[in-house]
């Protein structure tokens, strides 16, 4: 039988961790979206050196465990656990978001870019006004899934004392010695976040499918 007194006694600690998990995931999402868009545009820009930089970034980062990246940002800079964790998550997630956005951009018919360019728009203007607004529709569902992954991956903040839900769980289990029960509650808190997100993504997917 689960020991609910852990939950009630340590509610404020759980909530503190829950809050930090939300904040860290959210900041990392915004930052990795911006970085990911930039890298996606670099990968398809009509300029070889930019393509290379984009490709190297994606291939390099995707193939390193996120745990290693978070350790690296923590050890390389003197930012404290939470900031280092957010940077690590951003760097990692941006590679996946870049791939999702690139796929979205590639799915916009080539004629759209040609029509925009032939009326005198620069590459950047055409991207911003014509291509990206169309690509975003295709990109929203995979982006939602990346966000869910991000929430789960944010548990890695615990290893650099980032103050997140997992970290608070570690502290609670250390002082209560009820490791099993504590982590069940931690898991439930993650579900409170990820299940609605998962439904939200499914809903968006259906809506977007219908609007096409």
């Amino acid at each position: 039988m689960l020991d609910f007194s852990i939950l009630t006694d340590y509610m404020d600690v759980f909530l503190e961790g829950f809050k930090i998990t939300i904040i860290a995931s959210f900041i990392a999402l915004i930052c990795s979206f911006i970085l990911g868009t930039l890298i996606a545009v670099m990968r398809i820009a009509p300029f070889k050196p930019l393509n290379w930089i984009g490709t190297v970034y994606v291939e390099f980062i995707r193939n390193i465990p996120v745990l290693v990246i978070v350790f690296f940002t923590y050890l390389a800079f003197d930012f404290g656990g939470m900031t280092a964790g957010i940077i690590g998550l951003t760097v990692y997630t941006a590679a996946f978001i870049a791939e999702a956005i690139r796929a979205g951009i590639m799915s916009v018919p080539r004629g759209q870019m040609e029509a925009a360019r032939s009326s005198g728009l620069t590459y950047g203007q055409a991207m911003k006004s014509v291509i990206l607004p169309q690509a975003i529709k295709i990109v929203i569902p995979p982006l939602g899934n990346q966000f869910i992954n991000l929430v789960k991956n944010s548990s890695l903040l615990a290893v650099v004392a980032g103050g997140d839900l997992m970290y608070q769980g570690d502290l609670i289990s250390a002082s209560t010695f009820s490791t099993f029960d504590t982590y069940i509650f931690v898991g439930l808190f993650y579900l409170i976040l990820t299940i609605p997100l998962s439904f939200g993504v499914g809903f968006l997917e259906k809506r977007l499918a219908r609007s096409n």
Partner: protein
Amino acid sequence: MISFDKVNKFYGDFQVLKDINLTINKGEVVVVIGPSGSGKSTLLRCINHLEKITDGTLNVNGLSVADKKTDINKLRRNIGMVFQHFYLYPHKTVLENIMLAPRKVLGQSEKEAKELAMYYLDKVGISDKADAFPSQLSGGQQQRVAIARGLVMKPEIMLFDEPTSALDPEMIGEVLDVMKALAKEGMTMVVVTHEMGFAKEVADRIVFMDEGQILEEAVPAEFYENPREERARMFLSRILNH
């Protein structure tokens, strides 16, 4: 206004354009015809640098298209292009489609761009569809919007790549009418089309291409009645008897 001088273009080992020499003067309407894969689209797309020529010289509006110093965006402002599949921006209304380039490229104000867009929509006969989205229009209407989108930049040259080939037969006329009116106003036009009626009525010259070469250049009456080249004759009999 447009002059090709010994222009060649390759895709890898494959030569799409072979020694093209062609001059198009201001106000001329030139119709390009030829079998599928003969390089008509490529020829057209070289003019506004959607395709790069491999060698030779191509001058448009006094600018050398292949020259790295040429500002391609500036060149393109003066050349409208209409595609077989329209390529309207599906996320923008008709009015927004037409206003985009004037706003972004010419820096026109919202009000100025809107007035001008309405003027050209009226000209192509669909001002009542200003707030519709492209998906709500028929093919013929979409193509007329695409023409208005080109005209709103007040270009000196209009390029048309098979503008009616994707249309249902009953909509071809409305698009050709707009193009004929444009030709009669003195617009310089290069049109890839197999519409003989259009060619006979407004073209100054027919250019017949085959396998990347210009095989024959003639005035429409002469070309359609009595083509010099055997391959042109074969091609014409095929499109007339299909």
